Each structure stands twice: as structure tokens, then as C-alpha cells.
């Protein structure tokens, strides 16, 4: 019953959907009131992108609520739990830097994703800027914040190689160039923040990967259980 569209709108839509969901978990828990507004703002932008992308691939609610875990195509980075504020910022820095580069490229091409990419690249630039500013504050703030930020960057590093695995249907994207540019930008942001670029591998047996093929990490099942439970409890209902 579940459709398996092959359009690249699906993996990109899943990235936005799942990261938006994780950011939504911060509501009421942010360290300062301004961040309640900012994190919700980013979550809403991503949800808006997700809805457009999933609608290109099929029915947005069917795709979000009725697929099994193995049919989600998001990268594993976006499903990682929020952790402390530093983990959330590290995840956002890694992802938004990638998403901005990808959308920037797609905005100049002529594909069904071009209109979305053109609009979303501006949102994504703001998300990246927000994460970069916090990386600076936390990296070059107190000893504690520096330690926490470095720990978060290190912990999530192994999930970054997968960002540049080619996506089916996006054959013209110069993934290696994007990856090099991503590394340059991240290195510059971390150096300004007095932080160290993590040294571990980004590819190999013990690094992350496989999200685009529907292989996810253990926390993802619980995320879906929570997200899908109400919708699935009332088959055919309208909300």
C-alpha cells in the first residue's frame, strides 16, 4: 500500500521533516526565550520545505505517517536525538551548511526542485548563520561551553560523510565539490570559534551511512512511533 516514489524530493523532504520534528521537541525547553522563537522558526521553515517536497513525491500525510522506518530516506544525522543545546547546534551547523550548498546548486539548475530550492536557500542561509553564531558563542564562551561544543561536534562528525552520498535522481550534483566546500566552511567556522575540526573518519565500516537506503539508527523508531501513533490510530480519519 505504501508508495515508494523514486523522486529525489523524497529523501530531501524526509531530511527536512525529521529535523523539523527534532527541533519541535525543544518547544518549552530552550535555554532562553529568544531561542524558543528561533528554534521554532527553523523547525517551521523545515516543515514548510518538507510539505512541498513530500507533495512532489505523493500525499504528504500518507508519506509522513504511513511509511515504515525502512522506507524513510533521510540521512541519519537529522534523526539523532537533540542531546544538549550544543548537540542541537552542531547538528544544525553540519546539516544547514550542507543544505545551503545543495539548494544553492539546485536553484541554478532546471529541475522540479528548482523553485523550492530558490526559496529555501534563503531560509537555509539563516539557519546556517544562526548555528554559526551559536557555535562561536559556545566555542569561545566559557570552558564548559567550549568542552560541550567540542564534544558535540566530535560525536556527530561520523554522521557527516553520508551527507555527500549521491542521491538518486540528482545525478548532476557535483557531490565531491559540495563536500570540499562544506569542509572548507565548517573548518573556517570552527577555527573562528577556537574549536578543533574532528579527526575521526567520515566514511568506513564504523561511520554512519545508509539513511538514503532506508537504514536508520535506533532512536529513529521511537521518533516515528511518537510521530505516527495518533494518525495511525484512526485509519481514514480527517484532521
Amino acid at each position, binding site marked *: 500500500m505504501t508508495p515508494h516514489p523514486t523522486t529525489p524530493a523524497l529523501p530531501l523532504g524526509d531530511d527536512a*521533516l525529521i529535523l523539523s*520534528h527534532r527541533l519541535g521537541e525543544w*518547544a518549552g525547553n530552550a535555554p532562553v*526565550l529568544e*531561542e524558543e522563537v528561533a528554534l*521554532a522558526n527553523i523547525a517551521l521553515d523545515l516543515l514548510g520545505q518538507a510539505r512541498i517536497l513530500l507533495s512532489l513525491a505523493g500525499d504528504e500525510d500518507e508519506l509522513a505517517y504511513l511509511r515504515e522506518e525502512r522506507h524513510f530516506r533521510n540521512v541519519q544525522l537529522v534523526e539523532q536525538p537533540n542531546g544538549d543545546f550544543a548537540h542541537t547546534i552542531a547538528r544544525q551547523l553540519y546539516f544547514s551548511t550542507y543544505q545551503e550548498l545543495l539548494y544553492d546548486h539546485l536553484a541554478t539548475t532546471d529541475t522540479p526542485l528548482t523553485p523550492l530550492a530558490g526559496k529555501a536557500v534563503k531560509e537555509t542561509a539563516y539557519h546556517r548563520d544562526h548555528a554559526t553564531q551559536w557555535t562561536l558563542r559556545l566555542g569561545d564562551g*566559557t570552558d564548559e*561551553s567550549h568542552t560541550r561544543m567540542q564534544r558535540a561536534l566530535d560525536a556527530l562528525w561520523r554522521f557527516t560523510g553520508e551527507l555527500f552520498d549521491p542521491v538518486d535522481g540528482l545525478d548532476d550534483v557535483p557531490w565531491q565539490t559540495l563536500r570540499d566546500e562544506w569542509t572548507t566552511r565548517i573548518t573556517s567556522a570552527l577555527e573562528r570559534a577556537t574549536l578543533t575540526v574532528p579527526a575521526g573518519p567520515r566514511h568506513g565500516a564504523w561511520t554512519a551511512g545508509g539513511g538514503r537506503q532506508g537504514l536508520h539508527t535506533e532512536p529513529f523508531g521511537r521518533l516515528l512511533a511518537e510521530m505516527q501513533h495518533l494518525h495511525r490510530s484512526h485509519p481514514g480519519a480527517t484532521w
Partner: protein
Amino acid sequence: MTTIAPEDTGQEALFDATIAADERIEPRDWMPDDYRASLVRQIAQHAHSEIIGMQPEANWITRAPSLRRKAILMAKVQDEAGHGLYLYSAAETLGTGRDELLDKLHTGRQKYSSIFNYPTLTWADVGAIGWLVDGAAITNQVPLCRCSYGPYARAMVRICKEESFHQRQGYELLLTLSRGTETQHAMAQDAIDRWWWPSLMMFGPPDDESAHSAQSMAWKIKRHSNDELRQRFVDICVPQAETLGLTLPDPDLRWNEERGHWDFGPIDWTEFREVLKGNGPCNDERIGRRRRAHQEGAWVREAAAAHAAKHPAHPPHAGTDQEEAAR
């Protein structure tokens, strides 16, 4: 804030004349200490209600049953954080900063609206909060747009616009459930059964027992009595409930031709006082979570302050980013 003795300056007469002429008091104007204190108390309680009020609704963000509803709910909770920001800023114009007010909230020295001490048990509660709780809040707040203190009145204009949007969304959510499957209809009815009476309590104690009402009305901070506003709310809700196809849980509800209003049954003020005292179903959870978020965020706020102190030439303070975030 320095208060110059009014007899030296005739400023008290000026203040009274401004109030009498229905004009606005502004932050730099002289004002009686009690007027200032009364406003700080009211604005702080309002701000606290916005940020505590995020919790019962945020409870459903991760379970919203469609992406459209999820976007609406997230935007609503975000608006509440924004309302908290405007209101803490309005209090700041009276000389009391956000940190001090948050500390009073966290230590139980200032209150928030008791309604948020009730739990959101089903998805329909999100609709009931929108329709009833935001509806009651609007009934209370629209007159505040004409409040004598300028910054508060102006904040309320913006807040009321957003609140009426939320109220319509809540109503529409309930209408969808009411006209949906049998289970959805029952879910909506159950939510109304649980939220109706607490919503009526939001207008505060009856007029003859209200501690702050008389002075607030004389100062034109408040324009209508608790009971007047409560009646206005009941009169609005009865026909709306009928359109929704839902029943308000009050057997005494009937039209009174003579008064031109709906009569309603007695409110359980014992319950109201118990919840106010801290014995409601979620008092401990709400304040506990607020304190925990604040404590867990301490290192983040300290880092931002330390960074700003190290780089005074380029203050990358949260403010600028967030104003952009709230765009």
C-alpha cells in the same frame, strides 16, 4: 526608578488628569508607586502565562496527526514565546527586568494563569485550548488594548490579533473532529467537558471577592469587571457550541430573556482556589519543567555573556539574531 515627590511638582495632578482624559501614561511619565507595582504584577503574570502556556500545547507538537496541523501548532507555540518577549519588554519599561521576573516565577512568588495547570490528554485538547482558553483570554485582553499604560496597551493590540487567529484555528480543529468519525466527535466532546469550567474560572473570582479589581478599574488598567467579562464569554460561546455540534457541560445553561444573557450554573470556586494554591493536576510539572529548562540552559546563557564580554566590538548577542528569527 526615582519617584519625585508629587507635591513638589504637581505631577500627581498631571497623572490623574491623563487618566481622566483617557490618555496614555508612558514609561518616562511620573506615576504612583502603586500604579507601577500593580502593572508589573499584572504584566508579569500575563508574560508568565504565555511561557507556561507553551507546555500543554507543546505536549502535542510531536504527535500532531497531520503536517498541516503540526505547522499550525508549532506556529502557535512560537507566537506564545513571542508574546512572552513583548510582555517582558513591557514590564522592563517599568524598571523590572526579565531575569528578576523569571526568578519570581521559578520561586513561586509570582503566578501564571491557573488554566495551564490542567493537562492536555488528547489531541482535541489542543482545539479546546484554542477555542475556549484563547477565547477567554481574548475576552479579557481586548479591553486591555485601551489600558492606560501605553507599552502594555500597544503590546496587547498585537497579541490580541494573534490570539484571535489562534482561537479560530482551535474552533476549526474542533469542528473537524466534531464532524469526523464517532471517536473523533467523542474526543472533542470530552475535551469540552474538561475545559469548560476551568475556562470560566479564567476571569478570576466573582467581583465582590476580587482583591485588585476596584483600584485597577479606577486607574483604567482594567475596564470591565470579572463577572461582566465572564458573562460576555458565555454569551459568545453558547451559539458557537451549537454550531460545533458539541454540548457545554452545564445543565443550568438557559437564555434569560429579561437579562438578555445566558444564565449559567454555579462555578466550583473551591477547585479554583485549590489550583491557585498549587494543588492542581499539573502545578508541579509545569513549574518543575520551567525551572529545569532554565537550569539546564544556564551554561548556554553564561557562554553567551562570556562571549559578548570577550568581543565587545562585535557583540554577537542573542537579541539581533532573534529579532531576525522572529521576522
